[in-house]
C-alpha cells in the first residue's frame, strides 16, 4: 500500500526524521489560512502518481491569496485519473543540495538495501548507476554506524553532513523495519542551513503485513472493479481488450493472456482466483468478470489444489441464477476433472483439455461475435 506524501511525513516525524513545517488541507480556504501562518509555501497535491510536479500538481505561493488560487486550481486537476482530496501546504525550505536516499528490499540478496546518491531531486531512474551507492544490510546485525561511515566515504561525504547521515539513516532503517515498508524513499532529501530535511516522502507498506499496522488508514486509488476484486482477495487487473480471462495461478493466468494475444485476440483482464477457492468465491469471481461486459469468456483451469468440480459447479450455478449469454471457452484438467466435466456437460458446456485449443477457440468466438 502506497502512502500519500503527508502520511509518509507523519511517519518520518514519528521517527525523528526532520520534515518541513506543514498543514494538510481539504479546501482552498484552509490552504489560504495555512499559508497565512507559514509564510512562503509550497502546495502539493496528495495523489499517489509520480511526476506530480511535471503535471502541475505542485505550486509555490508567496502570499496567502496566491496560495488560495493555486490550491483551487490543484483541487480541480486530475492526476493519474484521480483528483486530490487533500493538499499538503508546507513552508518553503532553503535547499543547498538535493540527495537521494531510500531503503528497499533486494530480492536477490534477500536483504534490505540502502540506496544513496548525491544526485537527488531527479527521477531515480535518471541517476547514473555509478553515482548510486548500494549497501545491503544483514537483518540479524541491523544498520550499524560503521556502515553509514563507509557509505559516506564512498559518497565522498565528511564533516557535518556525515554527522547528519549517522543520525538519520538508522532512524529511516528503524521505520523501514518496524513499519513493514517495501520502500521508504526520500527524494529529495534536502540539505538546508539547518541540516537534512525530508522534502518528499514515498513510503510503501507491505500489503501482507497491514494486519500489524491497524493504525494506518487504508488507501485506495483503484477502480471500483479492482476494489471489489480486492475484497474478494482476487488478483485482478483491468486491461482494455475483449476476452475476459479467468485462471488459477498467477503464472498460468499471464501465460493465458500471452496466448490470447498469440492467437490474435485481446485480453480484457488478468484474473487469478488463486488456489483452492470454494464454490462461493469462484462464483463471485465469475460474477465480477461478467459485470465487465466482455465479449467472450475464457476459463482456464489446471486443477492442483483447485478442484475442477468446484469450478464447474460454480459456473453452472452462476449460469442458472444469472444467465450467461456470451460465448464461453472452457478448459478443464487436473484434480476431479471427470466430475467437473460431467457437471459442465449437464449445463450444456463443452470443455477442452488443452489450453491451446481453448484459447484459440476463444479467439475464434471473438471473431464470430
Amino acid at each position, binding site marked *: 500500500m502506497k502512502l500519500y506524501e503527508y502520511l509518509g511525513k507523519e511517519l518520518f516525524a514519528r521517527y525523528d526524521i526532520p520534515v518541513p513545517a506543514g498543514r494538510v488541507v481539504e479546501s482552498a480556504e484552509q490552504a489560504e489560512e495555512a499559508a497565512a501562518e507559514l509564510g512562503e509555501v509550497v502546495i502539493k497535491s496528495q495523489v499517489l502518481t509520480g511526476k506530480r510536479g511535471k503535471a502541475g500538481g505542485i505550486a509555490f505561493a508567496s502570499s496567502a491569496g496566491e496560495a488560495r488560487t493555486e490550491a483551487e486550481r490543484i483541487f480541480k486537476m486530475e492526476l493519474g485519473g484521480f483528483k486530490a482530496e487533500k493538499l499538503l501546504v508546507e513552508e518553503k525550505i532553503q535547499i543547498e543540495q538535493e540527495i537521494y536516499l531510500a531503503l528497499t*528490499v533486494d*530480492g*536477490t540478496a*534477500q*536483504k*534490505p538495501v540502502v540506496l544513496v546518491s548525491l544526485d537527488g531531486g531527479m527521477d*531515480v*531512474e535518471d541517476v547514473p548507476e555509478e553515482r548510486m551507492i548500494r549497501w545491503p544490510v*544483514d*537483518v*540479524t546485525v541491523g544498520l550499524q554506524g560503521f556502515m553509514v561511515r563507509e557509505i559516506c566515504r564512498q559518497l565522498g561525504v565528511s564533516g557535518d553532513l556525515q554527522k547528519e547521515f549517522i543520525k538519520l539513516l538508522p532512524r529511516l532503517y528503524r521505520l523501514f*523495519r518496524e513499519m*513493514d515498508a*517495501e520502500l521508504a524513499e526520500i527524494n529529495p532529501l534536502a540539505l538546508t542551513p539547518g541540516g537534512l530535511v525530508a522534502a518528499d516522502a514515498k513510503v510503501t507498506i*507491505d500489503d*501482507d*503485513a497491514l*494486519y*500489524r499496522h491497524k493504525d494506518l488508514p487504508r488507501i485506495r486509488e483503484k477502480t471500483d472493479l479492482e476494489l471489489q476484486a480486492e475484497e474478494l482477495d482476487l*488478483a485482478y*487487473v483491468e*486491461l482494455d481488450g475483449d476476452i475476459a480471462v479467468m*485462471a*488459477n*495461478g*498467477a*503464472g*498460468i*493466468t*499471464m*501465460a493465458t*493472456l*500471452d*496466448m*490470447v*494475444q*498469440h492467437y490474435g485476440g485481446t*485480453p480484457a483482464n*488478468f484474473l*487469478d482466483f488463486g*488456489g*483452492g477457492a470454494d464454490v462461493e468465491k469462484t462464483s463471485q469471481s465469475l460474477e465480477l468478470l461478467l459485470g465487465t461486459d466482455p465479449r467472450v469468456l475464457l476459463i482456464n483451469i*489446471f*486443477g*492442483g*489444489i483447485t478442484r475442477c468440480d468446484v469450478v464447474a459447479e460454480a459456473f453452472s450455478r452462476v449460469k442458472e441464477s444469472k444467465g450467461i449469454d456470451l460465448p464461453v471457452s472452457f478448459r478443464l*484438467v*487436473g*484434480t476431479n476433472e471427470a466430475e467437473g466435466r460431467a457437471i459442465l456437460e449437464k449445463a450444456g458446456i463443452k470443455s477442452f483439455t*488443452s*489450453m*491451446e485449443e481453448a484459447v484459440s477457440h476463444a479467439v475464434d468466438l471473438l471473431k464470430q461475435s
Partner: protein
Amino acid sequence: MSIYINDQTRVLVQGITGNQGSFHTGQMLKYGTRITGGVSPGKGGQTVEGVPVYNTVFEAVENEPVDASILFIPAPFAKDAALEALAAGIKILVLIPEHIPLHDAADIMAQARINNAVVVGPNTFGLVSSGASKIGIMPNQYFIPGPVGVVSRSGTLCYEIVGHLTENEIGTTTVVGLGGDRVVGLHFIDVLKEFESDPATKTVVLVGEIGGSAEEEAAAFIKSSMTKPVVAYLAGKSAPPGKRMGHAGAIIERGRGTFESKVEALNGAGVKVADLPGEVPALVKEAAGK
C-alpha cells in the same frame, strides 16, 4: 538421481492437523514421501494419516531425525514456525504459504544463511524428485521419473509445462518451485548449479516470468557455467508495465524486467525460449538430440 531430496529424505509436516496439512500429508504419502512426523502445537499425541503428531519441532526430532520440513502454517505465524525448524537443526524448509510479510521472509532467510539451510519458497508448490519424494502440493500424476530437471517461479504454469512433458513421455529428475514472492530462498542459479552437477539430469527447463532480474542472472550463469542444454518458457509477454500481475515479483518497473530483455539474455546464453507451453517438449527433444 535427483537434487535436494530423494527416497531417503525424512520429512516433517508443520501444521499437519489443518485442512491443507492433513490433505497434503495424505497426498505426499501416496506419492511415496517418507513422512516421519507432524507438528501442531497443542495437538501432540494424535495421528494424521498414521503419522504421529508432536507439540513442537524439537519434540519431533527427539523422536525421529528429520531432513526436511514442509510448512502449512497461516502466514502471520509462518516466521515463528520456520525459525523453530531452523533452530531444531532442519536443513531443508519448504514454505508453502502465500502472503508471508516481506520482512518476515527476510528474517527467515537471514537465519537460514547462518544455519546453512536451504529454503524453498515462500509461496511455492514445493519440490519433487520424481518417483522418489514429493515435498509439496503438486498433483501426483504428472511427476514421473526421467531425464529433465525443471525449475519454475510459478506453480500452475509449471504443472502445465510438466503436463506437456508427461504427455510426450518425457519424465523429470527434480522439479523445483521457487515461489512467486519478492524474497524467496532458492533462486534459479542455485537450482541450475545442482542440475549441472546431477548426473541424471540431461536437460533443464526453466519457467520464468516478467519482473525482477532473476532470468537475466540465470542467463549469465548458464552462459558462464553450464554445459547442459537449457530450454525456457516465460510468462508475461502481453503484460502492461506498472501492473502487478498476481505475483509480488511479476511487475515491469522502470522499464526493467521486461519480457524482451529476458528473452534476449536467455537467447544470448544459447537458451531457446518456447512461444507456447506446448512447444517445450519439442525444444527439449531437439536440445537432447544435440
